[in-house]
């Protein structure tokens, strides 16, 4: 149980080390963190880290006495996170003012990636907590990065305070777990507990902390405000990355739990899922701001993913992984398009501002339309198969009721997603759009890739599905 030095095995943290190096360079090496050099350095770091992922693939590298397990699931999550970061970089290159000391920005992002890398690979609750805190502290600062923006500060302080409360709750859960089992290792959940009565409570408190990260009701209320206040590149990042990391943790938690703890977890998942589908979809109906609408949509999407968690026995892990994959493509794409459209502006972009986008920037309109359709879950986009897979897992595990709620919610979601599409294509003369950049920008290219991937996962999903089910083979097989 106690870590001994022979177990350290730094190899398993290879991507994190790369990222850490990059972050430190950006912070401390003069010239790297200033001006236009920051972005290439950061991007290079991320790409190198990404290159490390295939190196580790399939090895299940274990380090630190079992506290870090770099299995395929962690690597898949890490790949997704790094891609997210790249897209967010592209958005940041557009959105951030040049004169800032941008090195800090990118290094904070890299730190958060380190945090999430640790989170997703952790085999111990305390390590998860540490990873979460590394992630959270970086993000708090990033949300308020543009100090001059009032809304940004408001968002940052809300995010910070609420996030800290959630961390405290998570910690309480950790403490109770420790008390119940004498250990904070995830595998301890399956071991016979010394105080079994505490386990359900501990499990639920842990879920609260993670539920905050994935913005599942009733822990979701920060999300719209923070997304709206944060710089758009950060919002892009927050809407995807922490969710992926938190879901991986939830997957592990659910996969390792047994007995009363498992029942409590299942109940909490079902509750959050149903609440999320209701709240997210209904509240999104009346939003006028595009980013808030996307925030609520994100809440709803997380709720769909949550269906897969109680259904681990029925391939739920693969369903969740696949959904996360597709979610990354489509939600990232949506936010990236938003970032592209609202570059350098302070006010929020309203949905009505998009009127006539189809005739002014057909490519972008098409991309945004694809993402909206994918988020609705209509073929031929990946969103369809993502939902399909999750529903399948849910039904197989006997959660037909939840799935029925989900399909009704899907119908409701039609309205607000497709409203965006209709405004872009069916109306003319939106006032809110400034001159869009001409030519191919980095962000534009990123959006293009997202479009292709969103459609590709919808037409030929087999490879992606296989990757997803290979990610958590133990979970899928073990139950």
């Amino acid at each position, binding site marked *: 149980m106690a870590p001994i030095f022979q177990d350290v095995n730094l190899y398993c943290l290879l991507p994190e080390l790369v990222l850490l190096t990059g972050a430190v360079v950006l912070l401390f090496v003069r010239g790297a963190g200033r001006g236009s050099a920051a972005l290439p350095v950061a991007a290079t770091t991320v790409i190198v880290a990404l290159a490390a992922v295939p190196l580790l693939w399939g090895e299940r590298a274990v380090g630190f006495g079992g506290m870090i397990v770099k299995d395929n699931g962690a690597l898949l999550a890490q790949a997704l996170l790094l891609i997210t970061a790249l897209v967010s970089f592209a958005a940041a290159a557009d959105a951030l003012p040049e004169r800032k000391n941008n090195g800090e920005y990118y290094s904070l992002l890299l730190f958060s990636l380190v945090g999430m890398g640790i989170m997703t690979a952790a085999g111990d609750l305390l390590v998860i907590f540490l990873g979460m805190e590394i992630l959270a502290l970086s993000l708090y600062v990033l949300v308020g990065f543009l100090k001059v923006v009032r809304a940004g500060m408001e968002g940052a302080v809300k995010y910070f305070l609420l996030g800290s*409360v959630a961390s405290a*709750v998570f910690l309480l859960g950790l403490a109770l777990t420790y008390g119940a089992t004498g250990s904070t290792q995830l595998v301890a959940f399956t071991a016979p507990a010394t105080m079994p009565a505490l386990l*359900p*409570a501990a499990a639920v*408190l842990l879920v609260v902390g993670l539920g905050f990260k994935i913005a599942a009701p009733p822990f979701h*209320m920060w999300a719209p405000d923070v997304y709206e206040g944060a710089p758009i590149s950060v919002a892009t990042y927050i809407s995807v990355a922490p969710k992926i990391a938190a879901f991986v943790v939830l997957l592990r938690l659910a996969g390792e739990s047994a007995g*009363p703890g498992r029942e*409590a977890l299942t109940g909490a998942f079902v509750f959050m899922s149903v609440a999320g589908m209701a*709240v997210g979809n209904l509240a999104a*109906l009346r939003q006028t701001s595009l980013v808030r609408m996307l925030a609520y949509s994100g809440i709803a999407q997380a709720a769909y993913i949550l269906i897969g968690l109680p259904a681990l026995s029925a391939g739920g892990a693969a369903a969740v992984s696949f959904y996360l994959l597709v979610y990354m493509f489509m939600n990232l794409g949506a936010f990236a398009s938003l970032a592209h459209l609202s570059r350098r502006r302070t006010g929020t972009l309203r949905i009505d501002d998009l009127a006539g986008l189809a005739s002014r920037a057909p490519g972008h309109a098409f991309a945004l339309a694809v993402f909206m359709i994918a988020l609705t879950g209509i073929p031929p986009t990946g969103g369809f198969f993502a939902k399909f897979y999750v529903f399948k897992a849910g039904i197989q595990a006997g959660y037909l009721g939840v799935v029925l709620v989900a399909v009704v919610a899907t119908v409701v979601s039609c309205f607000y997603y497709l409203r965006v599409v209709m405004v872009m294509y069916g109306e003319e003369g939106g006032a809110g759009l400034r001159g869009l950049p001409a030519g191919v920008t980095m962000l534009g290219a990123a959006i293009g890739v997202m479009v292709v991937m969103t459609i590709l996962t919808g037409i030929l999903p087999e490879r992606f599905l296989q990757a997803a089910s290979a990610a958590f083979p133990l979970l899928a097989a073990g139950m």
Partner: protein
Amino acid sequence: MNPDCLWLLLAPPALGFLVNGLMGRRLPASITAAVALAAVGLPLAVALGFLLEMTAAPPEARVVATSLYTWLSDGDFQVRVGLLLDPLAMVMSLVVLGIGFLIHIYSVGYMEGDVGYRRFFAYMNLFVFFMLLLVLADNLVLTFCGWEGVGLCSYLLIGFWHERKSACDAGRKAFIVNRVGDFGFILGILLTITAFQTVDYGELAEIAATAPGDASPIIALMVLLIFMGAMGKSAQFPLHVWLPDAMEGPTPVSALIHGATMVNAGVYLMCRLSPLLNRCPEVLLVIAVLGLVTALYAALAALGQRDLKRILAYSTISQIGFMFVAVGSGMYALGIFHLVTHGIFKGLLFLAAGAVIHTLGGEQDLGRMGGLFREIPAVAVAFLAGLLALAGVFPLAGFFSKDAILWGGFQRFGASFWIVSLSGALLTALYCGKLFGVFFGPRRDEGPPHRPGALLIWPPAVLALGALIAGVLGLPMFAQDTLLSRFLGFASPAVASGQGHELEVIMTVFQGMVIPAFLAASAYLFVRRRRRMEELERAFPRAAAFLADGFGLDKLNALLLATPLRGAARFSARIIDNRIIDGAVNGVGWAAMRAGRLLALLQTGELRHYALSILAGAVALLGAALYAAGIF
């Protein structure tokens, strides 16, 4: 008799329709007329050829049948497009083609200069095609096709002058009332199919002969339903309401469709089904009684009309009622006999009436006619001949047929039936007399008469000749097998013929005297004492209006059917559809929006509320988890 030539009867009118309908605009009027005439004349020649062969053949070999292709199939049950020319179809085709040909000739003159000249002939040819299809079909479904087709042509031709709203309304009414009848017809067909798996007339006849006794109720219901169709097409009470309005159409149309041919289709159909009818005497009784009621009712209504053509329309209804009396008496040949004679003299009357109306420049009001004999003597003679035939004066055609019908009814249903039908015949004489006022007495219209051309005079003249001699078909008198019935060769239900020939002769003589007497009296009243009659009418305006409206059936129909239907439609559209069903749908959407608004309101922006949400959520989940784990 080559069965393969049967299509020669059908093809020319269809081709005529296509030529005139598709290329009408590019053809000069003369060619249009020539095409239309040829389209009727050719099959007439063919039919006459067939007739010659048929009369030469022995009775059992008088059937020509051919089958073209399978139209519809449902497993073993098949509807084939097959044609059947037997004596009955022969007679009917000759009526259609013969009278139709004359009316086509007449129309060439009558419709001259009309904008829709080509359209008119196209429709007329189409009508002839469908009518022949109806007649020649060898099964019920194909007959139904012709049946609906003639209904369509009737609709199109009644509404021929489509700028006139009244014409359109009348056409629509005709179609819809006919459809009400056809509703019964098709149900009858469906019942036939479900019960016997066939619609072929020949097979049905066999079934009627061989089916066990307990099949009789089904057969009765079947025939009754089909009779409903016949009621619609042949304008029997209470489905007759469309026919008086149908006079909105051009006069040749009234003559051809609403006088001589189409309206008789019901009688034809019933005769076609005679083997089935013979099995169900109750249905025969129903048919006879309904025919009698119609005959009486329409004769009364005719008496109250002021419009020349409407009188003729009601008279048609009444006369078809007599035909149904004959059919109901089981004397199908007699029904056909009356059909033929009536077709001739009613066609004649309509054509002559058309000439009269033409002379008066479109005037149809009887009150403004009079003393036309001197202006148009040829037309008047023809018209009067038609009237005498209609009234049944010896030795014109109507005398023979009507006399036989009265006798048949007496024989089958007894004296009271005879008395009622005789009063119908007398009423006929009364309104015929009323029409004498058109030609005699003082002239009442202003302006110079437009003298009709030769084309408007010769066809009625030819028909008048027919009206004079058609009675021959009913010879010899006082015999069951007359010339026509021998040719037709119907099997009638056995009648207990108690009374002998003596009574029949007495009654014939009686009728032969009393009807002309009534006619003369009526003519005297309406020609010499016309003023008095008009004063009488003014003295009882309600009664007059009641008669003129055909006993107010149109109003009743509007009150009981049309208004409730419209009301139900409005109610369904505005209340059920818009408010209830769509309201529920939109209500769900509204509720979702409302819920969304409320949820957004919960997002107050205040940190403590957010924190409360997190903590309360945590406590709630915690409580639930502990409760579920059995700790509470």
